[in-house]
């Protein structure tokens, strides 16, 4: 029968390839659990309404805004945060000057890592279109797009 939970809810999921068990308040968003219960502050809060993409993480391999994901919904699922990326995978963004103030960068590189790992998604839209959910208010989009294109193996990149 349905499992009713008030105030305290233990959940298990896979976080950056490691099994994770944590007690949450059912009112917490995935973003809150990552930052304040697990100390993974790489994921940023920007707009809190799913516009800016600063809080982007991968959920079962797809980019999502962690500010719009109820934490109880990641039970049994796979979450990847910016902390899972190695410095090497970010080299092309350094080279293209994809970071200015840096506020959007953790979210940008998560969506970018999804595109780079799954270049077949470019059949569903251009890099620019697929990156439309990550706002950079320094408007450094050209550097970001260039960094992604250089990271995609078939595009003359690394």
């Amino acid at each position: 029968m349905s499992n009713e939970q008030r105030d305290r809810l233990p959940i298990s999921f896979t976080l950056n390839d490691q099994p994770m068990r944590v007690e949450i308040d059912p009112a917490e968003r995935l973003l809150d659990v990552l930052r304040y219960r697990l100390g993974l502050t790489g994921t940023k809060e920007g707009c809190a309404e799913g516009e800016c993409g600063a809080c982007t993480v991968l959920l079962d391999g797809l980019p999502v805004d962690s500010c719009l994901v109820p934490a109880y919904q990641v039970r049994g699922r796979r979450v990847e945060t910016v902390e899972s990326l190695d410095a090497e995978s970010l080299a092309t963004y350094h080279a293209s000057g994809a970071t200015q103030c840096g506020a959007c960068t953790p979210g940008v590189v998560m969506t970018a890592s999804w595109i780079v790992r799954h270049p077949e998604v470019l059949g569903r839209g251009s890099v620019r279109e697929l990156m439309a959910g990550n706002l950079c208010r320094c408007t450094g989009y050209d550097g970001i797009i260039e960094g992604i294109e250089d990271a995609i193996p078939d595009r003359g990149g690394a």
Partner: protein
Amino acid sequence: MTVLLPGSLDEALQAMASHPTALPVAGGTDLLVHWPQRPELHRQTFVDLSAVQELRPLRWTTDELVLGGLTTYWDVIEDGRVREEFPLLVEAARQIGSIQIQARGTWAGNIINGSPAADGVAALMAYDGVVVLDSTRGRSEIPLAEFYSGYKQMRRAPDELVTQIRLPRREYSVQIFEKVGSRRAQAIAKVGVTVTRSASGWRVVAHSVAPFVCRCTALERCLESEASVGSPDDLLPAIREDVSPIDDLRSSAAYRERVMARVLYYGLLEVCPSFH
């Protein structure tokens, strides 16, 4: 805050039956907007549908495409057959928001959220989508075009869940989805027009120009009758019969009416011999 976590459709329907004020949660993309600033919602009871596997798949039968209660926009974008047979679903899904929203937002959630500006609902309605609602009391099937009765008013009982959205497979000779917003990407529509034509006739659906997404039967009759249309203004009488645009923060009624006429006129000019 209380959240119920059913693991099957039966458990979900039981949970809805025993908690009449509970809100079902699918992708959460509407519910969680500005969540920390909405404490009144934190006192609600929710039924989380995310673990109900039966609601997930998108399936094809001989004569229907059946979306599940949890089918997302991305599920539809990813399906090559949808792109071939129901291209407007893919177009609407791609314009509804970023990949982050497409990956989470569901078609059923778009219907139940009841926004007059719902892109997904417009596309489903233009394909004669039927909403399948289940509860412990049984099943009801309601054509989407008859589902809404007012702003956020719909024919769903508090214990019912959308378990399927069924779309008949037909040959279409005209398929148009036009959305006018403040900009191309990720903007809520000021005016939306969706048109299809099949052996079952014309369908014209408007969104963001009435209290709910609606069929435009006067415009459909005008197309069916092949009445001569020589300018956008010729469409205004039918538009005024079908919709009642409002002034709101996104646009004005006068703008909406004129833009709707122009979008329809220029969209249909190439496909309708009666338009010149």
